[in-house]
C-alpha cells in the first residue's frame, strides 16, 4: 500500500501543470472556442491521443495509466477542457486499433483524433433494449455495397456526426449473436434520416436514426461478417466503467455542500438540518467507498501482478452503484432546496441554472441506459458470483 507517485510521475505532473499555466487560456469553454485547434495542440504535447501510435496521428507514448490519470486530474483541477471525449475517440478508435484493417486505421483514426471526423454509435434499437443482440437493422450485400434498412435509437450525437459505427444483421439465418456485423456508415449517404428524441429533461440528448436502402461500400465492414457482437463487446466493457468517475462525483458532492450552506428555510441553513445533514453524510460515505474502489481498479491496471482475485467483481459493480448513488445525490439537492428544487427552464429564482433537478432526471436515464440496473445485477450475479443463468424457457 503506497499512494505516493514515483519521481518520474511527479515530474510528469509538474510538466502538465506548466503546460496548463502556459496554454490553458487557449482552451475552448463550452461551445465557445476552436475545439479542433485545441485538440491538435494537445496531441502535439501528448495530452490527448497520448498512447495512440504516431502513424495514426497520435502522440505515440507507451501506455501508462498513471500518466492518463495525472492528465485527467490536472486538467480537472485547472477546469480546462481535456480535449475530445466523444464516442469516436473512446470507442471507435480502440476498436479499429484492435481489429481494423491497416487502411481503415489510416483513413479513420487521424481525423477522428483531431475532431475533424465526428462519430455516433448505432447499437440500440427500439425492439432491442436490454436484449441488444436481438437487433433487426439489416445489411444485405448487393454487389459492392451493403444495403442497410432499419432503425437505431439512443444515438447521442447523430445530428453532429459525420459517420456512424453500427451493428447490423448480415446473417439472418445464424443464431442471434452470430449474425451481426460491425459497419462504418457515412451519415451523408442518401436514405438516412435523423430525428431528435426529446427525453424527460425536455432536451434532445439522443436521436432516432432511420435507414432506407442506404448503400454502404463493402469494405466498410470492421472485422469479419458475423463478428460484430464480439467486436462491440470488446469496447462496451469500457463504456460501462466510463460513467463512473468518482472524482467528478466528489466535485458534485462539494457543490452540494455549498448549496446546502446557501439555502435557508425558516431561518436555518439546509446544512444545519440534522436530518438532511445525515443524508448528506450517508452519501459522502458511499462516495468515499466508491473512490477507494476506483483507486483499487486503477492500481490493478497499473500493476498487472496485483494478485487481487476480487478486482473483477469490483469493476462489474461500478455502473450500478455509481448511477444509483449519483441519482440520490442530485435528489438530495432537490430536497434541500424544497420548492426551489423543482424550478426549471429559465425560471426566476432558479438555482444553478436548474442543473440539480436536470441531473436528477438525467441520472435516472443513466441508471436505465447502457444496461439497466436489472441487467447489471444479472451480470454481477452471473459473471461476478457464478450464479446460474436464467434457464431456457419451454416453448408452449
Amino acid at each position, binding site marked *: 500500500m503506497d499512494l505516493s507517485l514515483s519521481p518520474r510521475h511527479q515530474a510528469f505532473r509538474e510538466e502538465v501543470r506548466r503546460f496548463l499555466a502556459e496554454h490553458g487560456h487557449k482552451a475552448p469553454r463550452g461551445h465557445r472556442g476552436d475545439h479542433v485547434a485545441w485538440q491538435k495542440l494537445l496531441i502535439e504535447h501528448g495530452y490527448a491521443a497520448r498512447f495512440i501510435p504516431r502513424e495514426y496521428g497520435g502522440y505515440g507514448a507507451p501506455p501508462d495509466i498513471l500518466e492518463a490519470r495525472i492528465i485527467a486530474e490536472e486538467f480537472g483541477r485547472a477546469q480546462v477542457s481535456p480535449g475530445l471525449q466523444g464516442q469516436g475517440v473512446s470507442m471507435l478508435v480502440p476498436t479499429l486499433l484492435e481489429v481494423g484493417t491497416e487502411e481503415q486505421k489510416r483513413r479513420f483514426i487521424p481525423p477522428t483524433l483531431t475532431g475533424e471526423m465526428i462519430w455516433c454509435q448505432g447499437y440500440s434499437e427500439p425492439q432491442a433494449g436490454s436484449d441488444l443482440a*436481438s437487433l433487426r437493422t439489416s445489411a444485405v450485400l448487393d454487389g459492392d455495397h451493403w444495403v442497410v434498412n432499419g432503425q437505431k435509437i439512443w444515438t447521442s450525437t447523430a445530428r453532429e456526426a459525420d459517420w456512424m459505427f453500427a451493428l447490423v444483421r448480415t446473417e439472418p439465418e445464424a443464431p442471434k449473436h452470430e449474425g451481426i456485423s460491425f459497419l462504418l456508415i457515412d451519415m451523408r449517404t442518401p436514405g438516412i434520416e435523423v430525428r431528435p428524441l426529446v427525453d*424527460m429533461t425536455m432536451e434532445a440528448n*439522443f436521436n432516432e436514426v432511420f435507414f432506407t436502402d442506404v448503400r454502404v461500400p463493402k469494405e466498410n465492414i470492421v472485422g469479419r461478417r458475423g463478428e460484430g457482437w464480439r467486436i462491440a463487446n470488446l469496447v462496451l466493457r469500457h463504456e460501462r466503467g466510463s460513467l463512473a468517475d468518482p472524482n467528478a462525483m466528489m466535485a458534485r458532492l462539494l457543490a452540494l455542500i455549498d448549496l446546502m450552506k446557501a439555502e435557508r428555510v425558516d431561518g436555518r441553513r439546509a446544512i444545519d438540518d440534522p*436530518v438532511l445533514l445525515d443524508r448528506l453524510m450517508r452519501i459522502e460515505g458511499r462516495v468515499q467507498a466508491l473512490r477507494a474502489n476506483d483507486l483499487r481498479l486503477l492500481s490493478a491496471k497499473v500493476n498487472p501482478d496485483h494478485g487481487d482475485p476480487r478486482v473483477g467483481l469490483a469493476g462489474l459493480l461500478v455502473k450500478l452503484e455509481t448511477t444509483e448513488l449519483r441519482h440520490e445525490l442530485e*435528489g438530495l439537492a432537490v430536497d434541500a432546496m*424544497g*420548492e426551489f428544487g423543482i424550478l426549471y427552464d429559465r425560471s426566476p429564482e432558479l438555482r444553478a441554472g436548474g442543473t440539480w433537478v436536470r441531473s436528477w432526471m438525467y441520472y435516472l436515464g443513466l441508471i*436505465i441506459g447502457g444496461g439497466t440496473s436489472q441487467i447489471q445485477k444479472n451480470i454481477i450475479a452471473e459473471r461476478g458470483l457464478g450464479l446460474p443463468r436464467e434457464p431456457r424457457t419451454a416453448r408452449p
Partner: protein
Amino acid sequence: MDFGLSPEQRMFQESLGRHLAEASPLEVVRQARQPSFDPNRLVPGLAALGVAGLLVPEAHGGLGLGVLDAALAAEMLGRAAAPAPFVAAFVMAPLALALAGSPEQQAALLPKIAEGRLRVGAAFAEQVAARADAGVEVVQGRLSGRALFVLDFAADAYLVASRDGGLWWVEAGASGLERIPFSTIDTTRRVGELRLAATPAEPLPGASPAVLRRIIDAGRVVLAGDTLGAAQHMLEAAVDYAKTREQFGRPIGSFQAVKHMCAEMAASLEPCRAFLWYAAHAQDALPEEAALQAAHLKAHVAEVGTRLAKTATEVHGGMGFTDLLGLHHWFKRIAWNRQMLGSPEQCRREAARLRGLAA
C-alpha cells in the same frame, strides 16, 4: 361502521375520470407547456361536473361536500396529470372563504367559484416554510412584501396569508401588485411569485392561525391525493408495459425482477389509498387527529410516490426516459407535489411536534 367510499363517491370518481380521459388526454397534457395554452382551459368542464364547487356550501351554489371528496377529485386529476387549477382554486380558496369570510364575501365570491368563473390562487408558502427575503406584512390595511410559490397562479384573485396570521383577498389587477410566473419541471400546474407594494386588500375577518392550519392541512391531503392518482397511473402503465413489451423472447413482466418491481410498487401504494381516505375523513370529521394525519399522509405518500415514479420509469426502460410515452409528466407531477406545502422531512418534523415529541 363503513370505511370506504359511497356509491356516489365512486360514481363521481368514474365520471370525472371519463371526463378527463376526453378533456385531458396526453396531447393536452403535452400542450400545457406552450405559452399559448390557457391554464384555465379545463375549468368550465370541471365546473360543470361540480368539481369547482365541491367545497362550496350548497347555500352558495356548491355541493357542500368535504375534503374527502376533494381528495378523490385530486386523485383523478393526478391520474390524468390534468393541466388545471385545483388545490388552491377549488380547495383552499373556498375553504378559506367558508371558514373565515364575512357573509358578504361568501355571498359575493363563493357562487362564482362554484361556477368556475372566479379562479383564485393561494399564497401560503411562507406559512409552511419561511424564506429569508419573503413574507407579506400588513401596513395600514395594505399588503407589502413577497409571496413565493403561489399555487394556481393563473388566477383572477389571490388569497394571501400575512405574517401575522391574517388572510387577505387581493384582486389580480390591484395596484402595486406585480406577478412573476415561475417555471417548474411540472408544466401542468402554475406557480409564481406575488410582489406587493402597499397593495390594497380585503381582510377575511375570521382568519386565525387555526383556520390557516386547516386550510394548509386540506391542501396537503389534496396534494397527497394527486400523488396517489399520478402514482397509480404510473404503476398501471408499468404493469401494462411489462405485459406487452418482449425481451429475450418473453414479456418482460414474466421476469421475476420486473415482477417484483411491480409488486413492490403495488404493495407500497395500495395502503396509501386507505390512508388518504382516513386522513381526508379526519379533516371532515375527526378534528383532534386532522393535522397529524395530514402531515403523516403528505410525507408518507410523497416518499412512496417518489420511489414508485423512479421504479415505474425503470420498468419502461429507455422508453420511460423519453418523451415518447409522456410518462415523465406524471413523474414530475409527483416530484412537484412532494415539495409543495411541506417536504416529507418537514411534515415529519411537524408530525413529531403535533405528537408532543419535539419542540
